[in-house]
Every structure is written in C-alpha cells, then in structure tokens.
C-alpha cells in the first residue's frame, strides 16, 4: 500500500504514451483503427487513479506527500533532477485527467466515427494525456515546463485535426504561438529562480524563498514570469485570444483540453507556486484573473456559436480560479478547477451531442451551408434530445452557481475569499465587483444558451424531425458528468449543500505562503469564513437575477433582445466582435512584425549583402581593373616595353655605325682616344 502512489503514477504517466506510440505506428492497421488500444490504456489509468483516490481517502492525511526524483542531466556542478510529487492535489488532479480523458475517448468513438484520421486522433489524445499527467506529477519547474510545451503540441495537433480547413490550421498555430508568448515569461521566471536558488525543485524553491535567497522585486518578477506561463495556458487576458479559436478542434477535444484539463494547467501551476508569490505578484494575479472573468463573460453574452459561448465561459471561469489564487484562497481555486472540469467538460459534450445531431440532420437535407453550431438555427431540441438536455441543464445550474449543484460551492468559496480580500484591502474593491458581475453574466448567458438551443420554437422546423438523441457512447459520459454536477460528490461525507465542508476541504488544506509579508493560511481562511455568508447571499442573488433576466428575455419575451441590441448597438458590436482584439492584434502586432521581418530580410539580402558585401567584390574588381590598366598601360606598355623600345631605337640608330670597314673603326678609336685625352686634361 505504501508505495502504490509512485508506482501507479508511473503507470498513469506512461500508459497513454504507450498508446500514442502504438497508434502512431500501427493504428491504421489495427482492427477498429486501434481505438480500443487507446481506450484500454486510458481506462486502465482511470482504474489506477480511482485506486489512488480511494487510498488517499482512506489515508485521510492532509499532509500526505511523496516525492521521487532522479538525476536527468549532470555536468558536475550543473545538474537537473526531474521527478514526481504526489500529494492530495496530485491525486485529485490525476483522477480528473483520467476521468475526463476516458470520457472523451469513449465519446469520440461516435463523434469521430468515419473520420479520415481516426487513429491519428486517438494517438494525439494519448500524447496529450501523457503530457498532462506529466504536468500534474512534476515536482520541479523544469519538467513542468517541458510537459507544458508538450501539451501545447498536442493541443496544436488536435486543434488542427481538420487541417484542410484554413481556419483550423490558423487556430492551431495561433494557440501554439500565443502560448509561447506566455512561455517566454515562464522561462524567464524559471531562470530568475534558478539563478537565485540553484534548483528547480518546488521543495528547494520554497526553502530557498523562506530563507531569503530570493526576495523583493526579483521574487515578484519571478512570480509574475511564472504566472505569464499560466496566463498563456489558461487563456487569461490579454493572451485569451487563442482559446475561442481553438474551438476549431473536434468537440470532445474541446471538452478534454480546452475546458477541463489543459487550460486548467495554468491554474494548477498557480496553485503550486502560490507559496512563493509576493503580495505584489498576487495582486497582478488577482487583477488579471478578475478582469478576465468579467471581460470574457461580457463577450459570451452575445455569441451565437454554441461552442464560442462555452469557450468564453471557460475563459471567464478560469479567470475566477486565477482570481482566487490572487486573493489567497488558492485551495478554492483548485476546488473550482475540480468542479468546473466536470460541469464544463459535460457542457462541451452536450454541445458536441447537439452539433453531432445538427450535423446529421443537415446532412439528411443535403444542407452544407447552414452552420450546425449556430444557436440561431436551433431551438426546441428539448424533447428531441432529453438526455442531452437534462444533463446540460444540471451542468448549467452548476456553472450558474445555483445551490445544490457543485459550482455553487466552489464559486462561493472563491467569492468569499475575494470579498474578504477586499474587506481587508478596501482599495481593491473592484475584485469582488468583477467576481459578482461575472457571476450574474454567467447565469444569464448560460441560460440564454440553454433557452436558445433547447427551448422555444424550432428555428429550422424542417430539420427538427431529424434531430435525434446521440448514441450511448455519447450519452454515457453526459449522464455520468451531469450527475457529477451535483453538490453531493464534493461534500461527502456531509450533506450540507450550502457549505464546502467535506472530503475536499479535509484533504486539501492550504499551506502558508513562504514569502514574508503575506497573511498566513489561517488568517486567509478566517477572513473567508467571515465573508462567507455575505458572499453566499450576494452570489445567490446575482445568479437568480441572471437566470431571471435570461428567462424574461428569451422565454417570456418580456424584453426584446433585439431592442436592447439596437439601443446599445456599439456595446453589442464590441462584445459580439470580442472587443476587436483579433483585429487590433493583427493590425498592431502581427502585421508590423511581419513587415519588420520583411524589412530586415530585405536589408540583409538586398542592401547589406548586395551592396556592402558585394561592394567589396566590386571594389576589388575595380581596383584590380585599375591596377591591371596601370600594370599594362604604364608598367608594361610604357616602362617595360618603353625600355625595350629605347633599346631597339638605340640599336637601330647605332647599327648604322657598324659598317664593317676597318678604316671607319680606326677613325672611331682615334676619335675616342682624343676625347679621353681631352677629358683627362681637365
């Protein structure tokens, strides 16, 4: 029993990798394209994860902690050790990943039936699950970063699954590059910390920070750097732009990666590094999270694509979790991560079920023009797809924060923490305002989505007869996760739907920040406890308000959405167009960057190389021509040949005195002697 945690973790990590390798090389040749290999591997990890979970519950030890590491790279003084860390948070997270991954695998067998790259798809799911578990198990920043990038790749591959579509190919590239922006910060953070502490392991880092090896603004910067990684992965403002586009991927992938697990990795990282975040860094975290929560919710309100609504909702909910970390209640963040993983994955499965059905119905009518994801083409699906409806309704109630459902508990814990933070720091009153306003909007837009999709009259009456409930591989996960949206699973062994008290709060206990100046875990807890009731009342009130407005607008038609749209046209346009972020990034970042690259390349090739470097060639060429000319005209033709010509000239002139007559020679000799004698006489 003692060591099952490390052993099982190893298996949980590597089984999906094995599935990936098998699928990549042999998938196509296996019966059913090998989906059973993947499902087999992944459900084994689920069994192992459940076993670990049960063992954890039995142990009932909030301080449970195991670590195993090995030297990966050793150059003498410089070495990198990688390893595992298993505590209660790890075990819960492993279970979340294994559960949602299994559901996604099963769901996908129907959703992607007949897909041209069916085996490839399952292979990438395996790669993803491997990388995600790697993040979860990491006991150090280096392997965290490595797996961090690997989930980025699996995300890239899966978003681009239908890469024939330009939009999918663009979205996958955008996701990877946006994440890399965050990763630059992540890596700088790692370097700052390693430079000060000389280790990548969390335990060494915590020790190093508490003993003051790194402090003050350096530590703040390091914390913000690491958090930038989280901002990229968890799609926080202003790096939020990739997640909505990532919906180009198959819907089960959206459920697994872009709702439940991968995007939550940023939150997971923030939870792990919480103890070293300085008060300043935490404020940055809180504002980024809080603002994102509200900002994304305000976009979700006007979206018409069912997956886009859910995508912005995910961004918003992740913002909540980040806000919770920033305000100190990081276990609440992890709690929300857990409940959100269940209900949001379920909402995506539900939307997948609807889209799947729409797709088939439209296919029957040979309609390839209508967008199967646009809610304006839906309506009245409630009775056609009862399981999907009820399951989604449960999850919607959860995300809206209605009592008796899971989201209420976790959201309430976050809002209580935020409220308490503002009570202690009145200057930051905006944080709870962000939180409660986002909660109201969430309730509104989620019910708007439900009403538009399932209620009212069908907007396309001709296809409604072809809308059917999805097959059991798809409804199975819906039923399971819909059930898991109920509060009871998170409060056992207690039955109080109003309190988070349960196995989770018993086992996941916040620990103190190691940064001097931060309040202790106990102080934070007490503060949150005091704010709890007030927060609960407000959150119930705003949820009810949101749901009521939604009902009044879309069911009762007491308010006309159209009239409101017209009245606040510019606000609507802003929201509908996502505040023009993509356009502005394109205009002010991408395009200038490409222009810069082109300018640089032009300078390099057309200017520097052609004129400067080749200039030397031309200069040498010119110089050689000049010297050549000089050499020939002056030296050769004039001097050298001139000497020759002179010699020839003399020769020609002198040869006339060579007459061959003895008398002439005697005359010359006599003349010579006379001349010599004359010269001598001077």
């Amino acid at each position, binding site marked *: 029993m003692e060591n099952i945690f490390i052993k099982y973790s190893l298996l949980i990590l590597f089984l999906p990798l094995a599935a990936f390798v098998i699928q*990549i090389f042999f998938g196509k040749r296996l019966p059913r394209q090998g989906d059973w290999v993947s499902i087999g591997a992944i459900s084994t990890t689920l069994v192992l994860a459940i076993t670990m979970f049960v063992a954890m519950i039995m142990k009932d030890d909030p301080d449970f902690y195991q670590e195993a590491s090995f030297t*990966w*790279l*050793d*150059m*003498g*003084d*410089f070495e990198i050790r990688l390893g595992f860390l298993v505590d209660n948070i790890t075990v819960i997270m492993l279970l979340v990943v294994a559960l949602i991954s299994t559901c996604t695998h099963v769901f996908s067998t129907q959703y992607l039936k007949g897909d*041209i790259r069916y085996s490839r798809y399952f292979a990438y799911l395996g790669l993803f699950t491997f990388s995600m578990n790697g993040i979860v198990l990491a006991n150090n920043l280096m392997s965290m*970063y*490595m*797996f961090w*990038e*690997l989930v980025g*790749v699996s995300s*890239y591959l899966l978003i*681009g699954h239908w*890469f*024939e579509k*330009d939009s*999918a*190919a*663009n979205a996958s*590239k955008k996701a*990877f*590059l946006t994440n*890399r*922006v965050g*990763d*630059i910060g992540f*890596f*700088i953070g790692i*370097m*700052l910390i*390693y*430079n000060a502490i*000389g280790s990548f392991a969390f335990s060494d880092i915590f020790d190093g920070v508490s003993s003051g090896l790194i402090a003050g603004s350096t530590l703040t910067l390091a914390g913000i750097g690491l958090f930038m990684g989280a901002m990229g992965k968890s799609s926080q403002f202003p790096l939020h732009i990739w997640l909505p586009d990532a919906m180009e991927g198959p819907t089960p992938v959206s459920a697994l990666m872009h709702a439940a697990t991968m995007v939550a990795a940023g939150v997971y990282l923030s939870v792990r590094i919480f103890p070293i975040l300085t008060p300043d860094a935490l404020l940055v975290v809180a504002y980024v999270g809080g603002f994102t929560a509200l900002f994304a919710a305000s976009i979700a309100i006007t979206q018409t694509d069912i997956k886009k609504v859910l995508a912005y909702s995910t961004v918003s909910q992740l913002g909540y979790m980040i806000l919770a970390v920033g305000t100190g209640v990081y276990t609440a963040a992890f709690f929300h991560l857990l409940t959100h993983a269940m209900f949001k994955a379920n909402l995506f499965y539900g939307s997948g079920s609807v889209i799947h059905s729409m797709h088939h119905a439209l296919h029957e009518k040979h309609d390839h023009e209508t967008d199967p994801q646009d809610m304006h083409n839906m309506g009245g699906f409630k009775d056609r797809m009862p399981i999907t409806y009820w399951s989604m309704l449960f999850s919607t109630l959860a995300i809206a924060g209605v009592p008796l459902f899971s989201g209420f508990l976790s959201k309430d814990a976050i809002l209580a923490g935020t409220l308490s933070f503002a009570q202690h720091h009145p200057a930051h009153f905006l944080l709870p305002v962000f939180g409660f306003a986002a909660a109201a909007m969430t309730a509104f837009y989620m019910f708007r989505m439900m009403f538009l999709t399932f209620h009212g009259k069908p907007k396309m009456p001709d296809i409604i007869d072809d809308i059917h409930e999805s097959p059991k591989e798809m409804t199975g996960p819906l039923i399971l996760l819909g059930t898991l949206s109920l509060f009871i699973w998170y409060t056992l062994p207690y039955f109080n739907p109003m309190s988070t008290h349960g196995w989770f709060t018993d086992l996941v206990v916040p620990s103190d920040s190691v940064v001097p100046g931060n309040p202790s875990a106990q102080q934070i807890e007490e503060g949150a406890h005091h704010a709890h009731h007030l927060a609960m009342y407000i959150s119930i009130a705003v949820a009810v308000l949101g749901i009521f407005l939604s009902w009044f607008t879309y069911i009762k038609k007491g308010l006309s959405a159209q009239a409101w749209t017209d009245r606040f046209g510019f606000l609507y346009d802003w929201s509908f167009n996502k505040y023009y972020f993509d356009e502005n990034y394109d205009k002010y970042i991408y395009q200038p*960057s*490409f222009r*810069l*690259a*082109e300018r*640089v*390349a*032009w300078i*390099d*090739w057309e200017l*520097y*190389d052609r004129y400067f*470097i080749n200039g030397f*060639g031309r200069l040498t060429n010119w110089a050689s021509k000049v010297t050549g000319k000089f050499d020939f005209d002056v030296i050769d033709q004039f001097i050298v040949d001139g000497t020759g010509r002179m010699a020839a000239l003399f020769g020609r002139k002198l040869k006339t005195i060579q007459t061959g007559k003895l008398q002439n020679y005697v005359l010359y000799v006599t003349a010579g002697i006379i001349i010599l004698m004359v010269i001598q006489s001077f």
Partner: protein
Amino acid sequence: MEHILSLLIWLPVMGMVAIAFIPREKEDLIRTSAAVTTGTQFLVTLLLWSAFDSQDGSMQFKEWAEWIPSFNIAYHLGVDGLSLPMVILTGMLFFIGVFVSWNIKKAVKGYFALFLLLNTGVMGVFLSLDFFLFYIFWEVMLLPMYFLIGMWGGPQREYAAIKFFLYTLFGSVLMLVGILGLYFYCGKTFDILELTRVAPEALGGILWWGMSAIKVIWVLLFIGFAIKVPVFPFHTWLPLAHVEAPTAISVLLAGILLKLGVYGIIRVNYGLMPDGVYWFSTALALLGLINVVWGGLCALAQKDLKKLVAYSSVNHMGYSLIGMAAVVAAGEAHGLNMKAAQAGLGGAVFQMFNHGTISAMLFILVGVIYERAHHREIEGFGGLATQMPIYTGITAVAFFAGLGLPGLSGFISEAMCFIGAFPVYKGIVIASTIGILLNAAYFLWAFQRIFFGELNEKYSDLPEINRMELFTVVPLLIITLFLGIYPAPYLDIISSTMDSIINHVVSFATFASM
C-alpha cells in the same frame, strides 16, 4: 588504436585514390566505394568513442611526428571531449551524405572524389593539434567545397561558389596573420597544446600599435572563425551557398562546417587567449543575441524553404554564442558560478551538435520535396499532409526540434545556453528569449503553408518519401529524440573537457595581463 586518428583522416583519401582508378562509367561502383569508405570511417569513430575515456578532460590518442623541423611544425593529432562528438557527427553525416548524393547524375566520379577530400579536411581540422596542420586542413576543406557548390549546385552556383570561397578565404587570411603572430611571439611553435600553455603569458603586456596583442590576435582569429559560424555580420554567404549547393553539401555545410567556427573559437581563442575571453564575452553574447533575432526575423520573411532553413542556422548558432559567453560566470567577478559556466559552455557545445543533427535533417527533408516538386517556394505547396503523411510526420518532428520543443534535443541545449548565460547577461538573455517565439513562428507558419489546407491539385500524385530517403533521415531523427529524452550519454563525453576549458579560462583570466 595507436594511429586511429590518422586512420580517420586518411581513410577518405584512400577512398579517393581508389575512386580515381574506377572507370567513370561505373557509377554505382563509385558510389558504393564512397559509401564503404565513409561507412568504415563512421565505424572507426564509434570505435574511438568506445575507447575514449570520458573522465579524462585532456587530449587522448595523441599522435606526434616531425614534419618540418626547421619551422618547428609537427604532425600532431589528438581528440578530447570537445572534438569527439564532432568527429562522430562528421563520420555519420558524411556516411549519410553519400546516400543523400545517390541521385547525383553529373560527373559522379569527380563529385565523390571531392566529397571524400572534403571529409579529410573536416576530420583533419577537428583532430589537428598543430596550428599549421590545422590551417592546412582548414584550407583543404575550402577547395572541394568550392567545386562541389560551383559545379553541382543550382542555377546561381558559380556566383555562390566564388562568394563562399572569397568570404572564407578572407577569414583564412586574417586567421593566418593571427597564427603567425602567435608563432613569433610565443616561442616559435605551432603546437596548440604548447601554445595553450605558454601563449597566455607570452602575449601578456605586448602592445601592437598601442593595442594589446591579445586583443588583436583574438579579433583576427575570431573573425576567421566567425565567418564559418556564421556570426552576424559575416553571415550572408550562408543563405546563398545553402540555396545553391546540392542537398548533401547543404547537409554537410550546416551539419559540420558551421560547427568548425564554434569549435575553433573554443579550441583556439579560449585555449590560447583565455584573458581575451573576459574582454570579449559581452560582445560574444551580444552577437549571439543579434544572430538569434536577426536570423529569426530573416527566416520569418523567407519564401524559399531552403533559405528559411539556412537563416534558421544563423538563428540557432546565436544560442551557442550566448552559451559560450557564459564561461566568464566561473570567474571571481561573478562569484565563481561554476554551475552557470558548465551550463553555458556545455549548452553551447551541445547546441552545436544538436544543430548538426537537426539542420542536417531539415536540409535532407527540403531536398526530398525539391526532388519531387522541383521548387522550394513555401507558398507553392499546400495540403501535402494528406498526400505524404510519413514525410509530413517526419518533417513535423524536425520542425518541432528546430523550434526547441522539449523532448527533442534542441530544447535542452538552448535551455542550457540561456540558464548558463543568465547570471552574467540577464538583459541579453531576456532579450534573446524572443527567439523562443520567433523559432516557433517561422517553423509553424512554414509548416502550415506547406502541409495544411486543401491539397494543391498539382501535387496529387507526389510520391511518398522513399526508403533511401528514410534511411538518411531516420537515424538523425532517432538521435534527436534520444538525446532530447536522455542527454546524459552526450554530456558524459563532454563534461570533463568542459571543466578543463572552464578552469583554464578562469585560471588565466585577469585583465592585468592585457
């Protein structure tokens, strides 16, 4: 084992002589001979590795013979942890290069003869311990390279070849002046080990025209090597030479010849003028930053895939330069930070090996598509992923290796360069992390344009990568993956040697002697 290094150097010459006696029509026999020669050489390099003592940071398998005693010139060879990986890489890439060249139709005999001569030159440079010998081999590489580009290259081959030749010759001349300076001021010896011992002190305090002799010689030699690396602003011969050279020659150029620059700087500049390292390291790191950013931006703008890969070399070698600069961290001024120095120098040397395998892979892959489509315009493809899935998969891994994905070797070396240089050059390192983004941007964008989207009608019958091509690229892929997951075997080879280089640099490093 006694003459194993000589065997490595002269084996290709033997092969060349053998090829000279084969009638020119028997092309397959010529190719096979080249394959056997380089294959044998590769096996010998592996043998050398197995016999190498990685705990020993000094020169091993030394050979010494008198050559021109009146000038104190000797035939002196040796191998250490810095050169051994490059020797193995040389053996492997030349062997692979033969198969990449299999489809060369023009003057096969001449091609392979020159190919083997180039092999001798490269091996000679890595193994020489006599500066004169080093220089001879350095020049021996130049000649076959000139003809290989100039005769078997693309449409602009003659221009490219002459440019390559003159550019490199310019560097060689500066290098020669530097070598002679060292010779005359350090007791008239060309022996690198001897110079390593005496040069730091012998050169100390000497002024030439008011400048420290160390600085002058450092710069002369540095430019000579920098042209090979290539370091900005001496890099523009590279894209041209790469674009025009036949695939195998591009592979060797990027895979090995560029590494001679880094190798030379570490072996010669660091070894002979360790005090200069302190003086120059900031410039080195800055040049590294410029290489990263400039090369990355240029790569992003390229329309020709081969030119993109060529500029990616400029970008990638920048990391190496930054890592090299980190050696100074071990000095007193930076708190004897041995960790950083090891990470940086080790990263730089690892990066040169990794770039060797990764860029070789990239050039082979560019060659594969060029062979089929007869062009390399990135925009001219589209949707090849459905047509050539295996090729797409391999290219994806190669591109991801190029953009420094963890799990593939390039990541570790880049990360080590950054981590090593960070304590000393925070600003430069932080600025150069933009490379993390640039690398991803140019590789992924190119990948999208070539492989994603609807299949370009023109290429609906493009054949998949064949067995011979797979044979050339898969070994490199495996090495990239293996070292990415488990870098220890490589780092074990270099570790002791890195330590002795760092200690050497640190022990002599004082500004006073300059």
